[in-house]
Structure formats: structure tokens, C-alpha cells
């Protein structure tokens, strides 16, 4: 029993590091994922993963295959996209996800154009984005720091964020702090996402941020509890996905995201709130009464 569930992590350092990375990511993914879902920005992660391309391309042209330069430049362009989208939605009537889509598409096209113009066929994205099995010491430190910073920032601006998520109009009418909270939130999101892309890969990062957050909403109503449940689900998916990858021989990123997907489907079917089963039960109760 212990052999099956625990020995892989004792025997192999890469399994330990992968697990620790999943736990670090899980801690931050609860609150960030839930807030993104509540603000109807569930696809922000995917948008950010495309928005890094021009930065990565420029970094590559300037400094060659340097991880740090490419990573930093990627972070800057992703940030630019997120901040521009957020500013546009603050000052116009456009919704934030629409402006995000507009800016990330521009960034993506720009990135492809830059890469192609220089004739290099190097698959930048493949090189820029990491794999959960290849996490090394510095990579682990990067993910852990990004997630810790994200948690601290979120703790500070939590109230303003919640107000903004439930009632954007209220924030728009009352004071500046709400707007600032919004910008700061987007910066934090970009920081954590880009850090996780570079060490763990896009699919894995976006999957562990968004799937548990959507799944947790089928179980509890209270926002704090939803965040905690989402974090626990993310860590559990990481652990179980790694075990599946180890014992069955599936690639780790997909194995972890599929585990999170199974948890989501179970929640969708049988969660306590708003799931298909819960709706059916409620209908029946109404009919019988």
C-alpha cells in the first residue's frame, strides 16, 4: 500500500520536486482560480499563455536561447496585454474578457510574425514552457515565490477584490482603491501564470488553476471555503496525477489535468450545489410537495 502511494516520491527526487511544485501551485490556484471564474475571466490563463509569444520571440532574438531573458520578456508582454485589457475595460464600456481577447490576439500575431520574419524554425514555445517532470531547484523556487507573493497580495486586496467581483458598478462609483485592486490582481495573475508556464508547462498550469476552481463551486457556497476546497482539489489532482503517470506510464502534465478533469466531472454530476444530481433532486422535491 505504502509502496504504491508513497515510495515513488521517496525513491526519486524528480517526483518529490514535481509534488512540491504541485502543492505550491495548488495553494495559489484556489483563490486565483475562484476569483477568475467569478469575474468571468476563466479563459484568461489561455490568453496569457499566448500573450507571452512576442516577448519570448524578442528575447530570443536579443539574447539567443537564454531562459531568463526570454522568460522576463515573456512576462513583460503578458503583463502589457493584461494591463491594457484591464485599463480599456475600466475606461470604456467594453468587458474585460473582450479586450483581453483583442490584445492577446494582437500579441500572438505579432509573435508569430517576429519569429517567421527571422526564418528560424525553432519552436520557442516548446522551449520556453517547462515540464512538471523537469522541475529543478531554481524552477521550484520560482514557482514557490510567485505563488507566495500572489497569496500575500491577494490577502491584502481581498476585500476590494470581492466587492469588485460581486458588484463592479459599486467599485466603479466608489473610489479608486477598487480600480487599483483590479489592476494589481491582474498583475498577480500574470506573474503566477508565467512562472508556472515556465516551470510546469501551459496545459498543466492553466488546468490546475481553472478546473478545481470550477469544480469547487459545485460543493460550497461560501467564497473562502470555495477557495480552500479548490486548493485542496488542485493539490490532490497533482498528487494523484503523478501517481497515475508513474504507475500507468502516461505523460505527467496530461495525467494531472485529467485527474482534475475527473474531479470536475464528478462534481458536475454529484456536487451538493447546482450539480445535475442536485437539480434533479430539487425538482423532485418541488413536485412532491
Amino acid at each position: 500500500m505504502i509502496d504504491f502511494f508513497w515510495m515513488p516520491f521517496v525513491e526519486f527526487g524528480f517526483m518529490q520536486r514535481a509534488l512540491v511544485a504541485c502543492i505550491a501551485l495548488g495553494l495559489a490556484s484556489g483563490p486565483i482560480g475562484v476569483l477568475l471564474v467569478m469575474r468571468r475571466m476563466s479563459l484568461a490563463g489561455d490568453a496569457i499563455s499566448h500573450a507571452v509569444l512576442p516577448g519570448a520571440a524578442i528575447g530570443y532574438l536579443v539574447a539567443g536561447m537564454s531562459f531568463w531573458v526570454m522568460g522576463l520578456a515573456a512576462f513583460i508582454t503578458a503583463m502589457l496585454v493584461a494591463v491594457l485589457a484591464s485599463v480599456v475595460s475600466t475606461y470604456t464600456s467594453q468587458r474585460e474578457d473582450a479586450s483581453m481577447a483583442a490584445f492577446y490576439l494582437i500579441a500572438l500575431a505579432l509573435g508569430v510574425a517576429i519569429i517567421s520574419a527571422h526564418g528560424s524554425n525553432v519552436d520557442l514555445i516548446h522551449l520556453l514552457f517547462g515540464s512538471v517532470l523537469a522541475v529543478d531547484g531554481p524552477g521550484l523556487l520560482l514557482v514557490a515565490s510567485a505563488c507566495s507573493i500572489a497569496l500575500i497580495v491577494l490577502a491584502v486586496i481581498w476585500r476590494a477584490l470581492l466587492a469588485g467581483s460581486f458588484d463592479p458598478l459599486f467599485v466603479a462609483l466608489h473610489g479608486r482603491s477598487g480600480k487599483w485592486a483590479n489592476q494589481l490582481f491582474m498583475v498577480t495573475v500574470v506573474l503566477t501564470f508565467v512562472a508556472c508556464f515556465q516551470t510546469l508547462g501551459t496545459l498543466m498550469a492553466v488546468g490546475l488553476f481553472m478546473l478545481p476552481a470550477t469544480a469547487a463551486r459545485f460543493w460550497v457556497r461560501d467564497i473562502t471555503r470555495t477557495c480552500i476546497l479548490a486548493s485542496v482539489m488542485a493539490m490532490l489532482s497533482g498528487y494523484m496525477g503523478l501517481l497515475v503517470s508513474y504507475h500507468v506510464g502516461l505523460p505527467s502534465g496530461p495525467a494531472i489535468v485529467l485527474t482534475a478533469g475527473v474531479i470536475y466531472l464528478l462534481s458536475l454530476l454529484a456536487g451538493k450545489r447546482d450539480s445535475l444530481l442536485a437539480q434533479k433532486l430539487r425538482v423532485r422535491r418541488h413536485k412532491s410537495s
Partner: protein
Amino acid sequence: MFQCLAKQFCALLLSVLTGAAFAAQDDQPIDVVASFSILADMVKQVGGSDVRVYSLVGPDSDSHVFNPTPNDAKALAKADLVVINGLGFEGWMKRLVQASGFKGPVVVASAGVETLEQEEDHHGHDHGKDHDKHDHDDGHEGKVDPHAWQDLRNARIYVANIRDALVKLRPENRDMIEQRAQSYIQEMEMLDAKLRSEFSSIPAERRKAIVSHDAFGYLAHAYDIDLIPVQGWTTGREASAADIAKLIRLIRDGKVHAYFVENMSDPRVLQRIASESGALPGGKLYSDALSAPGTEADTYLKMYEVNARRILDALNK
């Protein structure tokens, strides 16, 4: 110098006599489009000044994930000859050729080679005899290993196929083309014999190493060594935790002594394995692409020798 000038003068005179249009067509080199850099180099070696070669996938690029540009289609459209590897290596080629409207001959360089089967485990040396998979161009279906150029004996067949195609297009230059092909094949034979004798002196228990992409099955088969891939089959595939754990155990048990990073796949997974198990890095191996012009592996023969030399050094350490 003088002779050359005299020859040119005669040619000029001839062209004036026989009509300029005809001569201009004859002086034009054959436009050849090769699917990737290794084939392009072979065509250059055989064709010499009779050919102008365009390589669709350039040096240091991955042929498994190729995105053609309009320039590529343009080059194809005005080409006289297209050279591909075949064996399902260029899954994207068929559609590109159709889209460009190219109507000329397509040479499958690997026609007639003895193919190897790709094995999941890659520990035995069985070889299925799946000859001539001309129509086998839609991705890596089936289990035939397409990287046949990693065996110098196959490379000779490649050269012969290219030679025959060029001769057919320029019968009047037959002598030159055949002569170049002949000396190229001789070079290959000499290198092959030299490497064979060096590989044969390695003791049986030191014949295993790890590679990051399963492209060296033919090389391993040719010199009777065992190269175990991490990713396996194509660079598009991701390794699983089980794969990596298996490799680390192999190295820890002392069965494998060296690992190699290719010129284009992700080195990070291998670096993790190495730092966890203490295997020695053997350096870069070139599988599907030459290195940039002017660097260590910018021709097929140089590439082959660099690869073999690195493997020899690592196994002898």
C-alpha cells in the same frame, strides 16, 4: 583558368550557333527542393554545380513539426525535382506538393533501404523487412523507423537514388554526376569501415547510452550498440514519470554510462535524469537536422562522424 575560359568561350559559340534559348535552358542548374537539410546536403554533394538546392526544413530545425511558408510553396512550384526521405518521415509533404502545383518527379531517397521497426522497449535488434513504403506519407503511422539515414549503408542507397534522378534530368552531364556520386559513396564507405572497427573494440557491457529522441535506431543497429530513448518515436511525445523512473533505475544499476542531448529537443528532462543518477553527458547528437553552416556538423558526413565520435568517446569513458 585558361582552359576554363576556353571552354566557356566554346560553349558561348555553341549557344550562338544552336540558338540562345536552348543553351540557356541547358546552363540553368536543376532546381531541387529537398524536404530537410540532410537530404539537401546529399543532393549538393552529388549534383555539384549542376543543382541549386532549396531545403524546406533548415538546419537546426525540427522536421516533425514543420510549418510551410508561401516561399516554400513557391520554391516547390518552380522546382524541377523534389527529394523526400519517405517512410512516413515528412507527413506534411504530400499536401504541400499538391498545394504548390508541382508536377515534376518526386524522388523517395530511402527507396530500397532495409527498414527497421521501431520497438516500444527498444532493447532487441529485430528488424522487420518493410521495403519501399512509397505511399506511406501520412505522419508516423505504422512502426517503421523513418530515420534510415543514420546508417551509412543506407546513405549509399540514398545517394544512388539521387544520382539516378539527376542523371535522368540531365543525361548530358551523366559522367560528372556519376563521378561525384561515386567518390561520395567511397567517402561513406571509408568512414563506415573506420567507425565499424572502432565500435567493435568496445566491450559488450559498455554498449548502452540514453538519447533524448528515438532517432538513432539505425546507427545502433549498424554498430551493434544500444541507445535507449527518453521521449521515443517523435519529438511531439511527452515522457511519463514511469519512463523517467525506468531510465534512472537503469543508470543507477550501472547498465548505462552516458546520455546525449539532441540538437533540438528539450534538454531539461535529460538534465534532471542526469543530475539525479550521475550519468555523464556525452554532448549533442544530431538526428534530423544539420547544424548551421560553418559549424561542426554542417554536412551529412561531418554530422555522422561527430555523432559516432561522441558515442564512441562516451562509451569508452
